[in-house]
């Protein structure tokens, strides 16, 4: 098909709402309040380095936990009967149909000092524990909200792996652990990369989860950027610079990730 006309509406959309805003972000990042070119905005960000490090750390931890939880379940799902698969996928997606804010509020009432969990533990004469407003609560919120985005791509790749691949590995002397390392992992790599991307990217830039579950002590990049635009420290120039840096960080990380996924994998679909 040489006819590119049907792509036209999207191209207009893309230019208007993706390309132009992107240029604006870059423009503002290098512009001073007086309107001249400057690198000050980028230099100013260096004072926020701990927040950047913390954001990336928490996002990596959340991604790892999601992966560890999702990988076995995705495998088990892909090997079970079709009916069971459909039901389970529905259950995995079910929380996503609930409003994101509501889900996170739910965790607030559970984790609060006077919340349900502490009340229950109180009955057993344990605690109370400080759970809300900790880094742990933020990670929990990320894992809870983004876990389906890890399970689904892993599952869809694994469902395509023929059972005979696993049997062939066993046949050639692999025990369960070696089957996973030598065959299952390499064959499910595209799913792993998609899953990691889909959990890491929203986790590293979230501000709702950290605001609601992390309190004031657990500010992340997302919160910082938000403050530059509607918060007390109004400064869209610095905000744009922060967004730009975050974008570059993500691009670098995704680049590293997908370098694992070179052309070796194209034979997967046979």
């Amino acid at each position, binding site marked *: 098909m040489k006819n590119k006309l049907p792509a036209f509406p999207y191209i207009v959309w893309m230019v208007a709402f993706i390309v132009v805003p992107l240029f604006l972000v870059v423009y503002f990042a290098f512009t001073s309040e007086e309107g001249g070119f400057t690198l000050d905005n980028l230099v100013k960000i260096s004072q926020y380095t701990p927040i950047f490090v913390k954001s990336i750390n928490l996002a990596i931890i959340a991604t790892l936990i999601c992966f560890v939880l999702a990988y076995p379940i995705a495998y088990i799902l892909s090997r079970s009967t079709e009916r069971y698969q459909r039901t389970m996928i529905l259950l995995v997606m079910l929380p996503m149909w609930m409003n994101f804010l509501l889900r996170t509020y739910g965790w607030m009432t559970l984790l609060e000092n006077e919340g349900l969990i502490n009340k229950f533990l109180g009955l057993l004469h344990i605690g109370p524990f400080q759970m809300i407003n900790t880094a742990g609560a933020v990670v929990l919120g990320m894992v809870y909200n983004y876990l389906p985005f890890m399970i689904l791509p892993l599952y869809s790749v694994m469902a395509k792996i*023929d059972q005979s691949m696993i049997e062939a590995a066993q046949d050639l*002397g692999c025990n369960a652990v070696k089957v996973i390392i*030598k065959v299952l992992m390499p064959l499910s790599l595209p799913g792993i990369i998609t899953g990691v991307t889909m959990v890491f990217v929203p986790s590293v830039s979230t501000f709702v989860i950290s605001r609601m579950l992390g309190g004031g002590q657990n500010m992340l990049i997302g919160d910082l950027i938000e403050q530059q635009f509607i918060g007390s420290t109004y400064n869209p120039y610095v905000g744009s610079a922060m967004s730009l840096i975050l974008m570059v960080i993500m691009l670098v990380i995704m680049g590293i990730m997908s370098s694992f996924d070179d052309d070796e994998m194209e034979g997967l679909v046979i």
Partner: protein
Amino acid sequence: MSEKLLDLKNITLSYDGEKILDRINLYVRDKEFITLLGPSGCGKTTTLRIIGGFAFPDEGDVFFEGKRINDLPAYKRPINTVFQRYALFPHLNVYDNVAFGLKVKKLDKKEIDKRVRQMLVLVNLKGFEKRRVSKLSGGQQQRVAIARALVNHPKILLLDEPLGALDLKLRKEMQLELKNIQQQLGITFIYVTHDQEEALTMSDTIVVMKDGEIQQIGTPQDVYNEPKNAFVADFIGESNIFDATMICDGRVEINGVEFDCVDNGFGKDSSVDVVIRPEDIDILPAGASDLTGTVKSVIFKGVHYEITVVCNGLEWLIQTTRSAEEGSEVSLSFTPDNVHVMKRIFEGFSSKIKGRVTAENEVSFLGVTFTREGLSLPEDTEVLLTIPPKSIEVVSEDHSDLIVYLESMVYKGAYNEMIVWAKDEEEEYRSLLVHSMNDEQIATDIGIKFRFDDIMIAPAELPGQKGAEREE
């Protein structure tokens, strides 16, 4: 040959309440090329999976070199498999696929390299080391799969229809190559196929299977020349199979004509099946033998002609280098040792089924009810019904009296002899004999319709009569 390398004892396996394997007993000798042969669904692949450690029997034992290995997982068995669709690892190249098993066993790098390269030479894939497996042709993938299994020096190599995806010419080449490799390496091969020619070409021993049961075990010559029953005769090569009656030892009657044979021990006047291979029949000028008929069709097959002759109401298939004119009269001749008498799978020539008188002049059997005027039996009497095979008609399922499972079908010269299974009130399978001109797919459900007037009814207590049950 040496002692038993592998021994399967009473292997039974059910899946979803359906028996896949029913008391399989089979041993395999060292360095033997043994083939499991049968139509799809006969349990041959399941047997292979049990040997490989991918399926586990409900009952029975698997012995390897005298040790019970029922619970030994696949990765610990000295057995390797060539899978049906090769199951090569797409993320590895040819070399790494072949080296996979040796790397898992953490062999010395130099040793791995030596063995992999030797094996690639053996399967004619030298120079393909760095190729991606997805870029190979079917035949080449096949060779990689064989090399990947053989490089581990297994005691037994299992091959699950390995040539199924190849075209005819390549398949023939690979058959010979596989046989060569087997003899060269002296490894026991257990081969699964539904292709009888392949089995005859390659095997030392053929195991013919049907419905999870072994029908016959023997050398290719045994299985071809002395088939145990009509199923084996029909499955292995083309053949003339007829209903017959044993007059006495050495004398058999086919459709009213008597012939000499060399078989005995079937009992006087017993019903049997007879098989005569088409290449064992010769065509003579009309009148030269007792068996004269009309040529129905002549097909040139290259080396021979395939001629169909209608004699004494039956179609006879003949393969001969001599041609004949269509429509002309010819006589057929064969020697007594070419007449192979076999035990019938279905005892007798008519189905005998238990029924019950449910009301006045009304009889019910297998959930089917019919009326018979003048039946002077009291209600609730048990009766024995004799149902001639010609009184059953194969019809589409929505016009049928009963839906049954078509268990086997063999052409008997004038009709297809079908054995079908129907469930009775106690959920037990009863078999019925059907003669039909229809060709149906075996192992599927078909509809049948009875001509009730032809069914004979007798009180069940008559001595000497026996309900037709499936032969165990």
